[in-house]
């Protein structure tokens, strides 16, 4: 199976899940118990729910970081578990942002941003230039040569965001991106993500257990015990999306 190249316009949803189930430890831990959802192109969707309800698991399935146990999961009409080249999908269609940043500790900020570019036929100079531009866009151009350990949490997440955009993905999957940050840095990171989402018309899926963070989205999906329990659109009714 194949899928279309980045930014090719395919009518219909970006993601489509139907009765998606994921069980760990031979079925003893049901993390997702039948998720059905649709995510449209360019949407900003928050997934919210208590710790352990399966948010990260869902994001991992969407990002082809793991395989579902059953059910169907499609990206632009192509089954994600059946992708011919999942590495290409992870590297070029989606970008990941994690709560723990997941920067490589022995590489400088600039080098970290270059890591995803190694699967592209780019020259060393092209990689360097692109990394510089990306770090500039997240306000880290003064930190290019620093190791991640020398950065504050907010700066590390900026670096990770720059890295997630390295190959111009159409989708960003952000798993609690502000979970390790203080409130001031959290606000800045959310501003940055919102700005990037509108500027690049990226489909953004943001997992959080913080309602305040989640309410930046166009749509909020609530999960509990591996199931979606409700959906709301904060802009539609009220600032409190409580159903």
């Amino acid at each position, binding site marked *: 199976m194949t899928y279309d190249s980045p930014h090719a316009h395919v009518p219909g949803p970006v993601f489509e899940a139907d009765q998606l189930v994921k069980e760990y430890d031979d079925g003893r831990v049901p993390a997702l118990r039948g998720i059905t959802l649709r995510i449209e192109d360019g949407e900003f969707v928050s997934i919210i729910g208590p710790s352990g309800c399966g948010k990260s698991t869902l994001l991992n399935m969407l990002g082809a970081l*793991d395989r579902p146990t059953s059910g169907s999961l499609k990206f632009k009409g192509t089954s994600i578990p059946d992708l011919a080249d999942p*590495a290409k999908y992870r*590297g070029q269609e989606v970008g990941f942002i994690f709560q723990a940043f*997941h920067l*490589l500790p022995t590489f400088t900020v600039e080098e970290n941003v270059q890591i*995803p570019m190694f*699967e592209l036929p780019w020259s060393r100079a092209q990689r360097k230039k692109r990394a510089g531009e990306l770090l500039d866009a997240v306000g880290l151009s003064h930190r290019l040569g620093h190791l991640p350990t020398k950065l504050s949490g907010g700066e590390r997440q900026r670096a990770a965001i720059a890295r997630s955009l390295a190959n111009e993905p159409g989708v960003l999957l952000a798993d609690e991106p502000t979970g390790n940050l203080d409130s001031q840095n959290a606000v800045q990171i959310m501003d940055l993500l919102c700005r990037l989402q509108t500027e690049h018309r990226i489909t953004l899926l943001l997992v959080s257990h913080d309602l305040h963070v989640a309410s930046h989205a166009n749509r909020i999906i609530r999960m509990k015990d591996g199931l979606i329990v409700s959906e709301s659109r904060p802009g539609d009714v009220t600032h409190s999306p409580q159903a």
Partner: protein
Amino acid sequence: MNFLTIVIRSLWRRPVRTSLTLVGISIGIAAVITLVGLASGYEKSVVRQLDVIGIDVIVSNMEGGMMPKAFDESMKAEIAKLPDTEKVTTVLMQMLSVEDAPMMMVSGREWEGFTWDQLEVEEGRMPKDASEKAVVIGRLAAEVLKKKVGDTVQIETDEFQVVGIVDGQSVVENGAIILALPLFQEVSGYQGKVNFIDIKVPKNTDSGRITALCEKIEALFPEVRAVKAGEVVGTSQGFRIARAMSWSTSLLAIIVGVLGVMNTMLMTVFERTHEIGILLALGWKRRRIVFLVLCESAILGLLGGMVGVILGAGALKILELTPTIRGMLEPDLSGGLVIQAICIAVGVGVVSGLYPAWRSSRLTPSLALQG
């Protein structure tokens, strides 16, 4: 930054472990260099000796291991009658412990035979005749035995006067004690026996005729082998055993090296599960991760090989100076052996990286990220 930077950065990250692994591989490679270098040095020294003396064919009984079994010297007269034998001479050669030297080549040579010709007297003189109770010694042997002209040297149960110190233009000759055949036959208890007949053929005799000569000799005397000088090293059992022993000992050292690198690479892969998870999440193909691990282990091998060659070369140099080896052979570190050793080291690296690389490519990205 390029791919190699990534490889080197990972190795550099654990300097202690990387260096310990390097020590492991380099000891293995140093063993290869030393043992094989000694064996091939031995071969080369002998070839050179034959060449300097001008021996074209050697007749001997090859079964005796390092020193062939003795046979009756009367064989010489028969061989000398054959065509294409310009000069024929007999030698009785033994490896003996002489005074403080544990192993010394003692060569009893037929008086006036051509094997005396290339010896140049550096000090003193040659023996007056076959009955003078005298020896000449090569200059390395003189150093090892700490003898000057006029001293005496004890061989087996008898004493001989050192009348000259000679340069025989090859390590083997210079490390030997040389005396007239009958004297040596008597002290060694090999009266009437020799273990080599050396033949010189007329200049420009073609190789086919020399082969024919060898065949004739072997037909006449089935108990001996006649071998062209250039083929001695290839056919002699002694050389073959030496070579096989040096390689098989080396093989053990190499296996130890493989286990060391494999252990290191496995630990590296286990420790870096999380990092590999990140690389997978960032779109790195499994193939590239396998390649990363293999490159790391290959570079470990390459570096270990280079260090090993240096260590081995050092060991050979030291051996060259030890009295036992000195004068017996010239340790040989050829370019070919260096290349071979480094290829082996890189091979060791790659082979040891295969399993860890395969392990790393089996990881599920989400689980690797959690762990």
